């Protein structure tokens, strides 16, 4: 047993460090490329550290014809509005299913849960036609409206509100506060932490979405970052402007990284809930 101890620890650390390097390596390359000239990137050098570090790629973003700042703001608008709507509507739905007795609530619950078994692929085409029919094509609403609720989070909010003490609420009810009043004045303020968890994951989903943005946004001025980056990479036939593409990719990660560091607690909480579903 003593023998095993001796080599077991270093082996474990070796596995962890190797995997950490495997994870970090592509990111390090991207960051380093964003400080390199186009010529150095395509020169095929293996050095992570740029030979002639330059800020030109970053400066270019704010000058010339680059639409980057536009795309960045579009992404912010969509992600923020979409997240706000989700947090409010998912909580309302969860609260109704957990705390309000009304006819058909069981049926509604079943209707909601059944949608979780449906693969999103089959909805792509009909959703596109509906978006087109109601005139939302090429608008931010096309991305926000269909995704304004999320069944997984309605379910998680329901579970959360079910464990809620009914005493406080009953006291408020005797004072004549309505269910809606209880929800906005008592339930929501008490669930700040789970709301933050919900918001972080939903924001991440909106921020990184590619498929819907690619399908619905046709005007280059309305692109979100992921679609814009892809367009930048593919527009120049034959030659990819790797310096631009990789710099865009690096900056697109910054807001999420900041969120991840600041809201780490909520990320971890969300993943715990995911496993317990």
């Amino acid at each position: 047993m003593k023998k095993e101890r001796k080599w077991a620890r270093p082996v474990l650390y070796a596995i962890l460090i190797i995997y950490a390097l495997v994870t970090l390596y592509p990111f390090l390359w991207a960051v380093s490329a964003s400080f390199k000239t186009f010529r150095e990137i395509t020169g095929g050098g293996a050095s992570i550290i740029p030979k002639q570090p330059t800020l030109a790629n970053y400066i270019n973003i704010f000058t010339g014809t680059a639409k980057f700042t536009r795309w960045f703001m579009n992404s912010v608008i969509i992600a923020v509005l979409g997240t706000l709507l989700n947090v409010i509507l998912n909580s309302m739905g969860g609260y109704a299913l957990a705390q309000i007795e009304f006819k058909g609530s069981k049926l509604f619950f079943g209707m909601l849960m059944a949608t979780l078994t449906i693969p999103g692929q089959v909805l792509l085409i009909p959703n596109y036609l509906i978006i087109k029919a109601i005139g939302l094509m090429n608008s931010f609403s096309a991305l926000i409206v269909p995704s304004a609720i999320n069944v997984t989070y309605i379910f998680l909010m329901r579970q959360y509100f079910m464990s809620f003490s009914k005493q406080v609420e009953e006291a408020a009810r005797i004072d004549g506060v309505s269910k809606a009043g209880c929800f906005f004045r008592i339930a929501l303020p008490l669930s700040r932490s789970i709301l933050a968890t919900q918001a972080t994951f939903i924001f991440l989903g909106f921020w990184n979405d590619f498929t819907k943005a690619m399908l619905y946004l046709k005007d280059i001025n309305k692109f979100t970052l992921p679609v814009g980056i892809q367009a930048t990479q593919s527009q120049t036939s034959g030659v990819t402007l790797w310096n631009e593409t990789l710099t865009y990719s690096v900056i697109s990660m910054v807001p999420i990284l900041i969120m991840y560091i600041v809201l780490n607690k909520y990320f971890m909480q969300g993943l715990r809930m995911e496993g317990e579903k």
Partner: protein
Amino acid sequence: MKKKMNRNKLYDHIQGYTFISPAIVLLAVFVYISIVVAIYMSFNEVNLFRWTFDFVGFNNYKRIFTEDRIFKAFSNTTKFVAVVAPMQTVLALILAAVLNSKIRAQKAFRIVYFLPTLTSSTALTMIFMFIFSISGPYNTIGKALGFVQEATNWLNEPKFALKIIMCMNIWSTVPYYMTIYLSALQDVPASLYEAAEVDGANAVLRFLNITVPHMKPITSFVFITGIIGTFQMFDQAYIFSNGSGGPQNSTLTVALMVYQYAFSLLNDMGLASAVAIVLSIVIIIASALANKLNKSEKLYS
């Protein structure tokens, strides 16, 4: 008093409906009506430009089993699922178990490992495409270490392209599942491991006899989520091939082909809908099978 109760009840009903209606309306339109539309379209030849629907019976479904390109897409996707879904699950479990064994700087490792989960598939695919492009580090390092003879644009190699996407997908999903495992591992009583250690079971045996059986429900969740996700892989294949599924259809997944039939000049939404429905049925069957397999194994252990 009774009257007041009734009025309260009525308010409850109204408030209940108000609170749940946004979700119900959106799901009704974008899920339930959409499914009906998808099924309807799969039995029609749809021309979007002229906006015509012609009923063709099972014709679209028959084409799925006769056209080579569709077969290729299903075979690519099956390969992709067969490699990626098990790899994700196993790697995630092993990494979580290693991280859980009283490691120093556990938090630092977790933060690093989680990075790919935070990154959009666009940014990830860009980075990987660059690495395997003609001037990318894969060539440079490969030549230095001898596993690459001649600098190649690997993105254009039909035998290589899907493998790059597989690696990228595994690499980017493992940390997410690992974190789910890691939080579940906190619930396994430490005394079990200690007792096994006293009995002389080494780390590998402890992993196989304690960790693996305890993680079974999580494994089932991770594996099925993986199957559902990988069968529908779209973003990475689209970005990688700029929507073409090339080189030589090697990155053509079913989801990408659905997109091509529906939204490109192929203008064949009926066939696209039929393919999407078949894919959904495959996914539902595959995840049901995986679930059953996991449950039956439980009986024996």
